């Protein structure tokens, strides 16, 4: 058994190094209690729905969501909108389809099977409309940033006046959580910016939390299944390990050598 402690010590040591190496350039992010953290973490359904609303009304005019389809909004483990709601959401967008029998492209209302409609035709158009900066696609944004959800949550609330001595060009803003502190997105959230349909008070903090929760889901749509399956898998493995341990003791007892 002593070896197992040594072994786990070694593993812990290796991981410690890994964490250390990541921690080197971290700033203290704002903290909030995420319902999806931890081995039993689940998404807060209402928060996801509100988050979708914030994304839709605030972010989606610049940020695409290209790996998500309208049907995902209905799926288990997500915002779980009803099929009717999701159909209505999809239908509120115009989707380019075709070519038809005449060889023409045409516009039609969106369906559940459509991908989220992009705000710009292409990356160049997005850059042209945003002073040269490309608003990143948001589908996996949370996983594409070192600080993850805490970083996005903090960034949305991190706008402040630049400290003395820092001069900002036109269209550049100061954000204390941004890498290098200079960001080309202006402060987007202000109290009461959206009117939540469930009556929740739309404070900046609340909107930042909801939209970040929504982004966590778009990045990891199977997070709930993963957590549930992981618990079962690990419990199963532990039980099996214990059984195998006693079988091993039994078998080795034939030759009187300790294992």
């Amino acid at each position: 058994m002593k070896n197992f402690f040594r072994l786990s010590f070694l593993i812990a040591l290796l991981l410690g190094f890994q964490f250390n190496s990541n921690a080197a350039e971290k700033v203290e992010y704002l903290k909030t209690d995420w319902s999806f953290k931890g081995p039993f973490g689940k998404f807060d359904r209402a928060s996801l729905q509100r988050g979708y609303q914030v994304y839709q009304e605030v972010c989606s005019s610049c940020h695409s969501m290209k790996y998500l389809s309208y049907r995902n909004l209905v799926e288990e483990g997500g915002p779980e909108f009803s099929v009717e709601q999701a159909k209505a959401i999809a239908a509120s967008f115009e989707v380019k389809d075709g070519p038809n029998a005449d060889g023409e492209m045409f516009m039609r209302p969106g369906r559940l099977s459509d991908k989220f409609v992009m705000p710009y035709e292409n990356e160049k158009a997005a850059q042209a409309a945003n002073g040269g900066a490309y608003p990143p696609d948001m589908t996996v944004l949370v996983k594409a940033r070192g600080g993850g959800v805490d970083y996005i949550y903090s960034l949305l609330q991190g706008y402040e006046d630049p400290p003395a001595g820092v001069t900002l060009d036109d269209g550049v803003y100061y954000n204390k959580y941004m890498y290098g502190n200079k960001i080309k997105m202006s402060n987007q959230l202000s109290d009461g910016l959206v009117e939540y349909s469930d009556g929740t008070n739309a404070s900046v903090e609340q909107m930042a939390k909801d939209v970040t929760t929504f982004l966590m889901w778009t990045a990891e749509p199977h997070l709930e299944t993963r957590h549930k399956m992981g618990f079962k898998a690990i419990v199963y493995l532990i039980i099996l390990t214990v059984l195998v341990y006693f079988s091993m003791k039994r078998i080795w007892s034939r030759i009187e050598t300790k294992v």
Partner: protein
Amino acid sequence: MSEHEYTPKSKVGKWFNDRLPLLTLANHLTDYPTPKNLNYWWTFGGILTFCLITQIVTGLVLAMHYIAHADMAFQSVEHIMRDVNYGWLIRYIHANGASMFFLAVYIHIFRSLFYGSYKSPREIIWIIGIIIYLLMMAAAFLGYVLPWGQMSFWGATVITNLFSAIPLVGEGIVTWLWGGYSVDNPTLTRFFTLHYLIPFLILGLVVLHIWALHVPGNNNPIGIDIKKPSKDTVPFHPYIVIKDGFALLMFMIVFAFFVFYTPNILGHADNYIEANPLVTPAHIVPEWYLLPFYAILRSVPDKLLGVIAMLSAILILAALPWLDTSKIRSAVFRPLYKQFYWILVADVLILGYVGAMPAEGLYLLIARVATAYYFLHFLVVLPILGFKERTTPVPLSITEPILGGSPNLAAVKKKDTFKDQ
């Protein structure tokens, strides 16, 4: 190896076995006499076989859904993560499986270093092992490029550019590797092909590795030659099978924890940004398991010499059976070697740490000292130690006490502690 000839009991079995002795092989594997004092560090061979099979099986499924094209690779990975049934599970097992594979292989290698398993008559096993390790690094690097994220792209650019350090033909070789003038679609398609090929080369070498092992048989914690079969050995089945199985299950619990609860912690966030040849990431870092070698590469100011140092750091291991001049295998009876061994372990961990840090200031200095010590250990310490070191008496067998003269109590005590584990 078992001395007795095996004959199948059934007539059909005998008929088949005379034509293709698979049953004899199965019998050999079952009866294979194994030292009974093997500790848990010896279970990593079986664990590594499990890792290889896991990577091959999950990789097969991923390849069915993955599209090796610069414009579609990133998107196809997201497709696997979202729309393929349990695609997220398969991909996370494959991605974390690579890290688990390296974790196990490093333990396996350092076990060999501690107990002198590379020494005569097991040099060929060791050298095959080093080739497997090299191929593993190649497979891991190629695989990391496939999702076509920022780290994939820039990692591929940095590593392939190392070849440009070769005088005269360097640039030509790099263009040839890329299939163009930069890392692009032709690079991706060939990397995918090679990533698919290498695991099967590894599988073949693993068969040779095990075959070569079964000629002299296993080394053991006290590192002595034992008679086989004898009181010192147990048949592979069921004794070693169940012990390996138990250790494998423990390993799988750790593995499952990563897959289900922190699947992205060992990867780099930048790899969730699609490859963009116009934007260079702030820091280009390889995966953790390559960091010590990355540190060695960067600690040499000259590019060509850096590449040579990095390659030598691995290839020097192949010469280890001849660099280590000591006749005693196990570090248990080598008090000085044991200390140098742990210094080497610390040295490699330090190299890994500074490999993840920017190559400047104190980090660079530490990297240089650690690199120098790494080579010093193999080229100076080990050859000299074999002649200078006073080893403690080695027992004649695993079960018998030390014979000849007065038994050395310390050694007997050592032996007992090993049996306890």
